[in-house]
């Protein structure tokens, strides 16, 4: 059993006594079994407190989505948690019956997916779906009368910055733009008093202008409710603008964790550093982008040593990197913020990069 009090808190500014909405402790997620088994997440731990926006960033196959889906227990038929614990509001999800877990999903954890069409029913009106979310998720929602429910739906949609809420309520998902659908999906996610919202690439399918609007709106609704947010994305730039803290995943493992601003300004893990350098910038001059050579690892391969070693500018060919899996170690605790890095050569890295601003 994990002691929540001692669980690592990363962010400064988030009161350390605010309760942990989510504790993931040494989580390992596997798909399939026997020889064909693929380990998607290995030994991942993270804690998110209420009011904290945590970004989990990684490329395809890094395990970020499996990590997020393990929390509500939505890994599908072939996926399962083989090790570790997940605590939502101090409740151990693994010990619950399927029925009790569904209860937690309804009340405490909300999900937002990349394609809002997956979370909206195409044959039911927006009113019908939104009111259902309020009825089941909001305490006392069951007892709302027709008029009260109408008002509640309207207020909720307006809170999600839908200007023409009364008309939109009567419409169906196909009549709305992608941005509007995502607003409604977010509205349904915050309809109750969920302590944790999990958003899996919520803006990836949207245009940049809409993306910026949705992020602002999401920021507002989670901040006013001091909900914990687990924000899954491949886009480090979005995370850097939006989240308080970030966990960088590579090959199923969390390789770096810390306060967002600090991680993007001074990434310590060679992979995080590579990611930052690979992101093109609009401002500043035209410069050669630095890609990371090679390709991401196949998760089916057994893990020997550091997963990033073949692509690493520091560790490629270094014996310890090839043979030993590095541990996620805390490297600094400046200004009350914690930075952890999974790299054998982090001391060397830190020596190189102290005071080095973002590339």
């Amino acid at each position: 059993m994990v002691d929540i009090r001692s669980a690592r808190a990363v962010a400064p500014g988030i009161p350390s006594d605010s309760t942990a909405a989510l504790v993931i402790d040494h989580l390992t997620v596997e798909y399939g079994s026997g020889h064909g088994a693929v380990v998607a997440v290995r030994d991942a731990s993270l804690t998110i407190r209420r009011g904290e926006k945590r970004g989990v960033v990684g490329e395809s196959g890094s395990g970020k989505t499996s990590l997020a889906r393990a929390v509500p227990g939505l890994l599908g038929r072939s996926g399962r948690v083989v090790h570790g614990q997940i605590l939502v509001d101090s409740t151990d999800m693994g010990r619950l019956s399927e029925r009790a877990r569904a209860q937690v999903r309804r009340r405490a954890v909300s999900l937002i997916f990349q394609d809002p069409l997956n979370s909206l029913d195409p044959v039911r009106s927006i009113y019908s779906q939104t009111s259902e979310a309020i009825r089941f998720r909001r305490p006392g929602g069951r007892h709302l009368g027709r008029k009260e429910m109408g008002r509640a739906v309207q207020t909720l949609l307006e809170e999600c910055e839908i200007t023409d809420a009364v008309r939109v309520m009567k419409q169906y998902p196909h009549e709305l733009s992608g941005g509007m659908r995502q607003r409604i999906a977010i509205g349904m996610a915050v309809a109750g008093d969920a302590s944790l919202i999990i958003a899996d690439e919520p803006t990836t399918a949207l245009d940049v202008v809409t993306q910026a609007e949705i992020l602002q709106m999401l920021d507002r609704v989670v901040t006013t409710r001091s909900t914990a947010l687990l924000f899954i994305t491949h886009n480090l730039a979005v995370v850097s603008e939006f989240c308080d803290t970030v966990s960088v995943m590579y090959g199923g493992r969390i390789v770096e964790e810390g306060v967002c601003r600090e991680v993007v300004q001074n990434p310590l893990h060679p992979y995080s550093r590579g990611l930052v350098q690979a992101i093109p910038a609009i401002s500043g001059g035209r410069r050669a982008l630095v890609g990371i050579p090679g390709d991401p690892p196949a998760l089916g391969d057994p893990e020997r040593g550091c997963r990033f070693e073949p692509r690493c500018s520091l560790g490629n060919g270094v014996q310890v990197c090839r043979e030993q899996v590095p541990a996620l170690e805390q490297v600094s605790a400046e200004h009350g913020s914690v930075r952890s890095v999974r790299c054998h050569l982090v001391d060397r890295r830190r020596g190189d990069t102290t005071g080095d601003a973002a590339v």
Partner: protein
Amino acid sequence: MSGDGSPSEPARLPQGSALEVIELSKSFAGAKATGTRRRLIIEAVRSVTFRTVPGGILGIVGETGSGKSTLARCIAGLTKPSGGRVLWDGVDLTSLSREEWRIARRQLQIVLQNPYSTLDPRMTVLDTVKEPLDNYSIGTAADRIEAVHQVLAKVGLGPDFQSRLPAKLSGGQRQRVALARALVLNPALVILDEPVSALDVSIQAQVVNLILTLQRDLGISCIVILHDLAVARQLCDRVLVMYAGRVVEQGDAEVVLSTPAHPYTRALVAASPEIGKELVRTSRAEHAGASSTRATHDTVGCRYRFRCTLSRGATVCQIEDPELEMFAGTQYVACHLAKNSASDKPHPVSEQLRTTPSALT
């Protein structure tokens, strides 16, 4: 737009083959409007005029539905334009017969967006890249294989890749194969539709660098369709910004993306996520009813006026569709109000947006 050629045409245009697009339009019949028999006409591309500079990389940027892919398909002859002309070396491509197109296509290749669906899953890398050479019966069988080896080396794939099937390739490798297939005919112009959008960031940087290197070494011209302005900034010499089928701004990539003049380009630049930037906070009211679908059906006035932060119901924006006009140097803007608003703000707009988003209003 005036008929005397493109506004993008600088006085000192380098000599060589250039692609000239003149008042190109493409409309589609949309769904029937409820209760009527009339089909809505969607003007996906509306009177677009521009010219490429030989050996340059021209970016076409805009959001989903802006018409950028339709424009690319019209240029490549995959979609028949409804109006206008595409001149290549003085030859009008839109009037070519099938056989003439077959010959012209050696010069003009297109790489489609998704590297996961553009390759035949049953063909090896060698066969895939060799197929265009076979189609045109170029050289002997041995020559063709040699040509494939050379082009694979150029895109950074070793000889051990030639016997692989697409299933055994990563996204980045597939995109390299797609590039090799386009380059094996030594084209003069390559159109790339979203070449990096399906790739992970670390691989995206590799492919951007590869395109830059190939373009420089082989001296080809490129037209690149992009939705990511940051990639456009790093990859392109010049950019066209499209909105609802219209070119709203064009010019040097550096100028347009660092000091955008059209309110739409400004909004795009301000909204593009970037490391170390604060989340832009604009008020929702500014984008009320912000739907480009509505703009595509609209026939009079500026199509951007529903979302515009400058217009605010100005009469001129409601009745007249603005033409592309010179804004400064090589920068051309289609906006009635951009010039007036720019004179108030001597500083680069993007910087202002970053610090005071209210500058948008």
